[in-house]
């Protein structure tokens, strides 16, 4: 099953996106997936088969923690929130991403280079 009209996420990028999404507040899996899709202008769709393993992996690393709470519509859901370590991890991944995307942009758009 392929979704050729959508961009496949780079390995490791999903973790960063999840951490970034959680910076705006606690959220459950469904909410995180929706937030990523909405904030990417419908371009990025997170597969549940990647999302839940990622969440559990992040939790195992100690970057997020989870607890069961009620949503505003009264639905019981498992909410994830960032830990201090998670915030640090997000900052370092963000830096790495900025560098990487600048580097890639430099290669892809040579005209924009100041030389």
């Amino acid at each position, binding site marked *: 099953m392929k979704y050729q009209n959508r961009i496949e996420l780079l390995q490791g990028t999903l973790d960063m996106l999840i951490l970034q999404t959680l910076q705006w507040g606690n959220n*459950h*899996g*469904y*909410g995180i997936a929706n937030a990523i899709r909405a904030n990417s202008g419908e371009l990025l769709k997170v*597969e*549940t*088969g*990647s999302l*839940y*393993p990622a969440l*559990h*992996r992040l939790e*195992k690393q100690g970057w997020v923690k989870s607890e*069961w709470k009620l*949503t505003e*519509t009264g*639905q*019981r*859901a*498992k909410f994830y929130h960032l830990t201090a370590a998670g915030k640090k991890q997000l900052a370092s991944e963000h830096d790495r991403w900025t560098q990487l995307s600048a580097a890639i942009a430099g290669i892809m758009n040579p005209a924009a280079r100041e030389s």
Partner: protein
Amino acid sequence: MRFFPFRRRENDLDAEIAAHLKMAEQDRVDRGETTAQARSGARREFGSEALVKETTREVWGWNGLRSLARDLRYAVRIVRKNPGFSAVVIATLALGIGANSAIYSAMRAALTPAPIPAMDRVAIVWTDNFKRGEHEFPVSAPDYLDWKGSGAFSSLAIFEQKGRNMRLGSRTERLDGINATDGFFETIAIRPLIGRVFGPQDSQPGHDDVAILSYGLWRSRFAADPAVVGSKVILDGAAYTIVGVLPAAFPRYGKDPIYSPKLLTDAIDSDRGSRHYFAIGRLAPGLSLDAARKRLDDLGTRLAASYPMTNAGTTPRPQPLQEAFVQDARTMLAVLFGAVGFVLLIACANIANLVLARGTSRAREMTVRAALGASRWQLARQSLTENLLLAIAGGVLAMAPAAAAKTLITTFSIEELPNADLITLDWRVLVFNLILSAVTGIVFGMVPALQMRNVQVHEALKSAGRAVAGGSHQRLRGLLVVSEVALTLILLAGAGLMARTFLRLRAAYPGYDTRGVLTMKVALPVRQYQSGDRQSGFFARVMEQAAAVPGLRAIGAIDDLPTSDNLHGTGLTFPDRPEPRSEDIPLVLRNSVIGDYFHAMRVPLLRGRYLNDADGKDAPRVAVIDEWTANRFWPHQDAVGRPFRFGRRGAVHHVVGVVRNVDAGVADTVFKGRLGHFYLSAWQEPQPVMTLVARTDGDPLSLVSGIRDVVRRIDVDQPVFDVMTMSAVRAAGSTSQELISLLLGGFAALALVLAAIGIYGVVAYNVGRRTREFGIRMSLGAQRSDVLRLVAGRSLVLAATGIGIGLAGAYALTSVMKDLLYGVAATDPITFAAVTVILAAVTLLAGYLPARRATRIDPVLALREE
């Protein structure tokens, strides 16, 4: 709350996913979808729940254990849901593995080293004669004394197995005995349980009246009384002092023997050509076996130069004790191990076949599971788990056939198989079984896993699972059947050759009539019967008085029965022919007979006369020979009246009669070819140990007490022993062949059944798959015979290919069994043809039965199906 960490997380994940779905559903309802639409939409968007769970669990880390538990649960369910299939697989494996473990334990027992300190330094030393092609002959006393001086050994001893008559209270009975020279116990280096072993002082003439008891003898005849050391025992009419008792672990020759010192004082011990002792030695410190071999070679060359008459071409050859110990059993064990290996391979091929056949019916299940997100590895793992489960069940159950085979092997108590009493089915055998079954499980479990490799989920689902059973799959099954048939043919050929050997050894007319003949041995101690006259006189008196025993028709005696493995070989020369080179002197067998031996055994006279009591000590030396010998040494002339000698200097004898050939049993198998056979009068060539041979019209055992009484009346000190009917004696001579025939035959029969099942399965499956096609063919006018040809054709091709390959394999492999065969070539065409016919018939029948079903297809029903 940490008791069920799996369960808690599992529930947690389930709830998390359920919440996800609920929220997605709610959003869709909010957007205006109906509840039903929203539910299926949310599910579709979510994707495979199972896959999400599986990949998430992998993150948890203990997935391996979890999935094993789940695979096992599933496997148990599958196994229980298919009791027929599972039973066939488990039974096949149990038989295959059971046969393997029985042979394995026999082999392990055979390879168990005797508990001799630094055993790798101990060697048996044989006389080899490369000029005459003689291998592993014993040694003569003069040669031994020269070898001893070679410096190759720190200790070297010779020994002989010599039965003793032991008087205990009022009874005299026959014991196995070993007479060994000084150095025997030093070489073996095992400390006695009680008392001492022999020292140099015991080898002084007049001080050699000492004896050592084996552990078994001490237990059975002396009630394990420690005070027995120092007491006297009467052996062959003379008193011996018991000086020690050996531990149970002492390596044995014979059954529970008594040991006494061997003094090299007899006349025969000065004859360098009289080789009848076994030599055992411990290598000198720091000397390697190769270095010792080199020294002995040099010594052999020197001796051959000094004594060309007796030693031309001979060389002493050391053989490590362990090797000597197992070599008799080696061929037998190799053949049996090969056979059980084949059986297991066939069982594996067959199970792979069954698994494949079932794989097709389970193809849909597999594709569905693949569609639901199971990875190929998961599917493969599942199939492996299932098959491992079956295999291990088979491996555990294999203990039953293994125990049966073990009982069979031990009840035969074959001489060639060392340590038969050590054959046990212990935890090591169970471990061996389990390893073997795990390996087989993996081997045939891989098959469906490989088969899943190319499954295109999409296509497979569309075609309702049929696509999996494609061409490559059928080719694989065909290949399996071909290899089964080929392996079966090899086994059948081996079994056939053994069966023919066995039948030849037992059923073929041996040249005498075994029915109604009783045999028993009497061994006169030379101490009590020193002269040959007294020895022959004793036996003549027994013959005379036994004639009065009711029912006795004829009685005679011979030094060694034709079935005996005790051979008296001697060189043959002719006074009327030119002096031959020593390596050209033929070896012939000679026996001493007395009384009506030929009548009692019903060996017909062809020319001349039998021996009789008139051929006495002072009469002209005479001999009766057999037909083969007459034709071999006196071709195209009448042998009667011709002269010959034993050795170059022996007395001239004349042939007085020619009798019908008698099978020499062991001699024929040992020398791989017939030897000349000479019967001498015991008056002229007396022997202290003779076997009485008595014929009656009824049950031979009815003569036992009568003859026993006669012997007792003549000399109460002489026990009668080895009382057996001639038929039993003959049967005992071929027990190892009988056992191998039985085992190989059983294995081959098993293989035949398995191969038949294999072919039947393939053809039946084919018929089932092509029912519709046959329906169409028949409605278009095809005759039943056309359909039959179509279906049977395939099994014919499979069987023919397998048989062809099997014949080639059997041709190459049966030569391994050469040493076990007798009277039949390793590539005997009759055996090969017979087993080919059997196998072809069975495989064709196995193919015909399902093919016939194809012809019974009702076209209308077949077309309407599906």
